[in-house]
């Protein structure tokens, strides 16, 4: 099942402007510290890494840990340098992987 992600990027920006990007990925971020009612440990299942590439160049990346809340929200900024695509990637435990591409036009 493809993971649901929401990415908020302005559609257009002036050259040199700092734009804010907000991302949200649908994921339980199971910590690996909880037990079921029968006492079995629930194995860890988290997103480990998030990255954002601007026209193929990585401009932001983050390593996530179990202390990140479920459905991780990550917000950061970047400078609008040229029109192009922003690629977002999430990878994690159990082969989890999600991706999203946004286009940004710089005027």
């Amino acid at each position, binding site marked *: 099942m493809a993971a649901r992600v929401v990415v908020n990027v302005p559609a257009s920006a002036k050259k040199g402007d*700092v734009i804010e990007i907000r991302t949200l990925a649908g994921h339980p971020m199971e910590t690996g510290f909880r037990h079921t009612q029968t006492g079995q440990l629930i194995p860890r299942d988290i997103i480990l890494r998030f990255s954002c590439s601007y026209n193929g160049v990585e401009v932001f990346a*983050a390593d996530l840990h179990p202390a990140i809340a479920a459905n991780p929200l990550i*917000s950061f900024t970047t400078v609008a340098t040229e029109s192009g695509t922003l690629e977002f990637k999430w990878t994690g435990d159990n082969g989890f992987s999600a991706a999203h591409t946004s286009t940004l036009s710089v005027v």
Partner: protein
Amino acid sequence: MTTRRHFLILAAGATAAGASGLAHAQLSPNIVAQRKAALEEAIRKSTGGAELKKGRVALDVPPLIDNGNSVPITVKVESPMTPEDHVKAIHLFTEKNPQPYIMNAQLGPRAGRAAITTRARIADSGRVIAIAQMSDGSCWTDEVSVVVTLSACLEDGLI
């Protein structure tokens, strides 16, 4: 005989004592010590033993947290963000979680501004620490003491 004035002074004292003891109320001292050591180890690893200086970093966490499962955290760092002088990484830690690390964000001059937001789980009342690692290798820090009423990891009974 206890006058009204005496009573008020006593009550204020008891409240203050309760608040100062709060940080250790839920976890046993042994685990608190272990987690403190783990935190110091994690900080040392991420900064490479660089000296931590106060300032330049603004950590924004609500001081009173109703629900530790989702705590908004914003970190802003004063930096020109030029190729010569920028923030390389922002590290976030908590004192009382089973693992101290929350997040490690890697930035560069193309970020424009050093400002990130995320949501974290916080297990118990204690410190939240943000460390910004600059391109010249210096480390700046800010910390906030928070009070958590509903802990994350509550199902665990805080082992």
